[in-house]
């Protein structure tokens, strides 16, 4: 410990062996065992980690059941092997049996390649939008084109594709549609609301924006979704009854717009006053001032928190389960309602968790990278 370092410095003739200065042993001494307390913590954590990690690996990989045979009499899978391993090993056979249903819901089985292409298109769209090389006007065109392609693929009815009504959609495409389309629509609203809340010479508009933001922020998303599913039909004139997905989408847009607006407002506030004054001095009109000078800088400032808000909304779309829309989480829950697999919900939930984790984790890594890059350019 501290005496060792002093000896090392004060007596140059007796240098420490290189193994204790560099390399894994030195690293472990500096990072794992640098004091008595730290050593105890390391040992305790290592003990629990090994114990639980070992039993988890045992459960998930060694004692687990990967496939179960088909019962020739009924033509259904026979989960006896899984029941026998219950409690000691995982039953991944449920995933093997149900993965298409979990990913694509009740979408017609032989048409599910379309839903798969939609998922790929979405991921491609996200990756393209994430690359700074593509941050220009054409990106909006790419978005419009991709979203059109996605809806053509999902609905069909043209180009020889079979028509699939909206209530047969399900699974991952629904989650991606709800979150992507929701954010794309909420964003312009959010910009307007943020500007409205910041406006100084339109007090009535400011008041409306404040009321809208504070009311929506004060209530849970579920109450808005309930509103969309129960009250929305009452709001509409006789005969006009938008489908359930669209109603939930409207609720999500209204909800997301508020949170995005608050993030954007933060960016507007962080911008130095000189920028506003310079724009005024040039005699620009309000919209030119905002569109050409303020917003480009303010939005750039808040990209990392915006991505964090996106992550939050991607997860929050799972709440549509409560009003019975067939998103990824709902299809997982319905899959384990199958009497054969009822006892093996843990495995399915772990798989769903992995899917959500992949999306959210890559987004959060991306936002951290951006943050680092931006702070670099500010420091320079």
């Amino acid at each position, binding site marked *: 410990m501290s005496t060792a370092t002093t000896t090392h410095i004060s007596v140059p003739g007796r240098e420490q062996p290189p193994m204790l200065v560099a390399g894994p042993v030195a690293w472990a001494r500096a990072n794992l065992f640098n004091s008595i307390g730290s050593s105890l913590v*390391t040992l305790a954590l290592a003990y629990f980690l090994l114990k639980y990690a070992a039993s988890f690996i045992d459960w998930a990989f060694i004692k687990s059941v990967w496939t179960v045979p088909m019962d020739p009499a009924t033509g259904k899978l026979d989960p006896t092997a899984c029941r026998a391993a219950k409690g000691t090993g995982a039953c991944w056979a449920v995933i093997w049996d149900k993965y298409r249903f979990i990913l694509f819901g009740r979408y017609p089985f032989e048409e599910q390649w379309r839903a798969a292409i939609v998922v790929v298109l979405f991921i491609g769209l996200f990756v393209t939008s994430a690359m700074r090389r593509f941050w220009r006007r054409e990106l909006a065109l790419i978005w419009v084109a991709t979203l059109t392609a996605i809806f053509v693929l999902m609905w069909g009815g043209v180009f020889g594709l079979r028509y699939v009504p909206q209530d047969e959609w399900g699974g991952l495409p629904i989650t991606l549609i709800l979150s992507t389309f929701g954010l794309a629509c909420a964003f312009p609203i959010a910009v307007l609301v943020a500007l409205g809340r910041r406006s100084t010479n339109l007090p009535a508009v400011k008041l409306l924006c404040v009321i809208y933001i504070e009311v929506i922020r004060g209530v*849970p998303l579920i109450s808005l979704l309930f509103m969309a599913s129960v009250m929305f039909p009452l709001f509409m004139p006789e005969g006009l009854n938008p489908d359930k997905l669209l109603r939930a989408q409207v609720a999500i847009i209204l909800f997301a717009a508020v949170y995005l607006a608050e993030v954007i407002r933060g960016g507007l506030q962080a911008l130095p006053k000189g920028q506003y004054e310079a724009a005024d001095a040039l005699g620009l009109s309000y919209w030119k001032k905002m569109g050409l000078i303020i917003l480009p800088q303010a939005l750039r400032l808040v990209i990392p928190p915006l991505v964090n808000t996106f992550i939050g909304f991607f997860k929050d779309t799972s709440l549509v389960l409560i009003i019975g829309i067939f998103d990824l989480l709902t299809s997982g829950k319905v899959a384990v309602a199958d009497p054969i697999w009822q006892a093996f919900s843990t495995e399915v939930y*772990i798989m769903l968790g992995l899917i959500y984790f992949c999306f959210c984790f890559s987004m959060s890594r991306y936002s951290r990278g951006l943050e680092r890059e931006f702070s670099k350019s500010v420091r320079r």
Partner: protein
Amino acid sequence: MSSTSTDPRVTGTRKAPGKGVTLSWSDPRLRAIVWQVVIVGLIGAGIWYLVSNTAANLEQRRIATGFDFLGTVAGIPIGEHLVPYDPSVNTYGRAVLVGILNTLMVTVVGVVLVTLLGTAIGIASLSDNWLLSRLCAVFVEVMRDVPLLLHLLFWYALLLTLPPVREAMMVLPGLFLSNSGLKVPLLVWEPAHSFAMLALMAGAIATWLAGRRATRIQHATGVRPKVWPVAVVALVVVPVGVWALLGAPFTLEMPVKGRFRFAGGGLISPEFMALMIGLVLYHAAFAAEIVRSGILAVPSGQWEAGGALGLKRGTMLRQIVLPQALRVIIPPMTSTYLGVAKNSSLAVAIGYPDLVSIVGTTLNQTGQAIEGIALIMAVYLTISLSISLFMNWYNARLALVER
């Protein structure tokens, strides 16, 4: 300041620009008025359109409006209630009250646990022990990148796979875990306990007063009188003394395992446990990140100054860094608390009888959708506003006094 100044340069001898509105499109004031009238008019027209549609629809479906349904007998069985509730006698109003109390209980317990776990993990993730900080980082990433609803379903499913009552696991003596929840021993409540609790509350107030007095003396003389003897007497000696004087009653009602159910003891339902585990793990991950970045926001010079004074790491953290970090931590922590309150509504997915789930059942039975949702929104708005107000007050108290 400027308002009391008599400097002619400030008060201005020049004539202020005219206050009147000219009828010209180039006058910004006229434009502002016209725009506001247009926007408010459009939104008002939109709302009027929706309201008139709603009124027409309600009339057509013969749905009576109003909150009269709260007075009729509910008939909703509710498993967990903090106030006496009987579905065959009590009204919807009572059921809603039960729901509100359950929501409040989940929120309060959740906020306390989230704060404790989040702070612990946030501090641990800054530890110089590599294993500890890595594990904390992994915990945070895994917990917050999975939707809360999935958390709840997962933990609920896991708790339901526990063995049945007959084979209940004994976690600690008297503590049984089975698929019908956690059975805990209950203290048989006697008047002596109530008096001891009263003494404890009085003791807390006395300690608080002693702390304030000590701070006052410290400000005046520079020497802080010891508070802990007062605290020990007021918080431990007096309550225990009261309890001992009244005969020191202490009987635990232990749960006794039967074939299908337990006799005696208290029960923590699997719904409540799953809700608590999910809510706390999910939000603690966010709270940990907030605490971590709050501590990192304190300039490292503060640590070094503490080190130069010869303080221990724990003392530096408690006395120097955390109080300053709190100023950064409080505003985002407020939104986490609001999140706990609002997300407790996800309880409806696993059947815990919170406000949303009870009102949801009510509106399915009575058809009073508008009133039900208005009720939910009003209650959550009240809770959110109360949390915001309290945290803003606390934040203002902690804020750096700038001269």
